């Protein structure tokens, strides 16, 4: 266990920060530009995982397990969330037979 910590600490914290920020941004931009909902949901997952990475790094540097506990919670919740999301998507596919982001825009103004 201890050596894992040290292994993580080999890389300086800034790098973790930068990396997760990059991942986060990639996810965000992806969510913005892509129109296929499946991909957008994957991008959202990417954002969440960047957060996970960050949390792990922090927990290692603070040598405090709380961060990793949080990661598990996030994974769990994200799973639930995606389940719901996909079911909504299925419903949508059934109603409009399309998975395009902006196919549904009756509600506006």
């Amino acid at each position: 266990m201890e050596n894992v910590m040290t292994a993580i600490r080999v890389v300086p914290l800034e790098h973790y920060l930068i990396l997760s920020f990059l991942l986060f941004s990639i996810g965000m931009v992806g969510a913005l530009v892509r129109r296929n909902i499946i991909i957008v949901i994957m991008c959202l997952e990417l954002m969440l995982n960047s957060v996970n990475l960050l949390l792990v790094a922090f927990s290692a540097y603070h040598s405090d397990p709380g961060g990793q506990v949080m990661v598990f919670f996030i994974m769990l919740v994200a799973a639930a969330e995606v389940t719901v999301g996909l079911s909504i998507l299925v419903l949508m596919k059934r109603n409009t037979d399309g998975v395009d982001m902006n196919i549904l825009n009756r509600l506006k103004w």
Partner: protein
Amino acid sequence: MVKLDLLAILVPALPLLGALFIGFGRRKLKGNSAGMLGTALVLGAFICSLILFLGRDGQTHIVHVFDWIKVGTMDIPFAFQIDALSLWMMLIVTGIGSLIHLYSIGYMHDDPRVATFFAQLNLFTFSMLLLVMGANFLITFIGWEGVGLCSYLLIGFWYTTPEFNYAGRKAFVMNRIGDVGMVLAMTLMFYTFGTLNYVDIMDQAGSFAPSNPLIITATLLLFLGATGKSAQLPLLTWLPDAMAGPTPVSALIHAATMVTAGIFLVVRSSVLFELAPYTQDVILWIGVATALFGATVGLFQNDIKKVLAYSTVSQLGYMFAALGVGAYSAGMFHVTTHAFFKALLFLAAGSVIHALGGEQDIRKMGGLKKTTKTTYITFLIATLAIAGIPPLSGFFSKDGILASTFQDSPFAYGILVFAAMLTAFYMFRVLFLTFFGSYRGTAHPHESPKVMTVPLMVLAVLSAIGGALNIPHIFGGHEWLKVDLGTAVEGVLGEHMALSASTEWMLMALSTALVLLTIWYTWTLFGKKTTLDGEPADMPFLKRLIAKRWMLDELYAVLFEKPFGWLSRNLFGIGETKVAVPLTVGSGKAAHGVAEWLRKMQTGNTSFYLFGMMLGVVVFLLITLFTA
């Protein structure tokens, strides 16, 4: 003392009762009853004031009725001041008033709204009495405005004729312009003296140095009020139009009493004016100018009442000229005599108009001396009086004024004498055109009933012998009126005739001679007229200007009436409908516009929403970064 209080309150109370009673019972009162009642009450007031007059003791009595306005340090009682001046005016108002009431019974006989007429006439008498009896400026001002209202009502008495209504409004508004001066003068005096009671103000005034700016301002403002009420330049154009009212009204309000309120006011506050020589000069020259103006315009008027109106303007000018040189007694004397003969002239003219069934154009009259004898004789006496033929009343009063102006400024004297000649000219022109020659009209002239001729006779007697009131020393008289007024009015006894007797004789002779000359000239022009040739087409410019009353009305129309209407229309048309309201409406519309624009953000596209959120985040992040 109680008796005096009672009488003093009774004097204005009786006409007021008349006004209320007749006014509210005007449907019940049939036939002449209204007239009788009104006349009786005014007569009663006359008797009361006569009793007061006879019982006078040269002292000034204040009759305190009740506290009117009492707030902060301001204490304005509702009180009457009984002294020689007010008593004298009360006599004139009630005396002449009762005569004219009597006359009106006949004159207004067939008018359906005769009761209303008498109610308003009584109301006028009440207001006039308040005016002259008031113990402070504000009480006087009550009467001042009251007579204005009554004059407005009575001028527009025949309200179905738009011109008459216009004339009434014109009279009221012009008076109001004068009242601005009056109100401001009162505020100023209250600010200065802390009181408005005549007695107190006159006491305190002594402590002010002559031509103190405050006093000068106050007096000028007071005089502005006077010009409005007494139809002096520049506020005189309402008086001729006021002839639209029934003739008795013209006699009572616009000749005998109301128009002399201005003179009364100046005399009442003589102390202040004595302290303001500058104002006195203004008064003198405005008076002189007005005298000349009225006299000139009178020359070519063809409406008999218009002629009399301008003659009134001119005579009032004389009185103010007198006040301007500080000859208060002379002024009041002329007020009195003028009240006699001018009232007589109007009533006589009224009797003529009555005789001709409403005809007022002297070109359509003539030769009436046979058909309406009494009227003719009385009219003749009055004309001689106003022309200033000795020994009629007008001679003495006018001569007093001329003499006192001469010693102050010979130039003014010259103008006034000239105006006197003009007076003689236009008065005799009227006389000749009306009663001499042969009748040029179509109606069937007939003498008026007794109820109308009796007042004529009484007034004729008065205007004949009225001069006896104030016979100057050179005739061995004792200037009784002057002495009497001296007990009440400051500076009257101070008037001393510096002229040598010989100069006075010479002046009298001169003016009389000139007047007689004029009369002879007039006789040659109009005396024998049987037919009247219309105005020659090519009148010289000056004559045309004068015939058009020096274009004063037109001038005011261009200067004031039209611009005011224009302003009123455009302030509304532009200021309100184009600016104020659109601004409020516009702000609402603007909000809606912004809303319409903002709601376009809500495109309904999920990607756009994501983008918007991210944009927000980025903006906030940047703020965080750069302000950190």
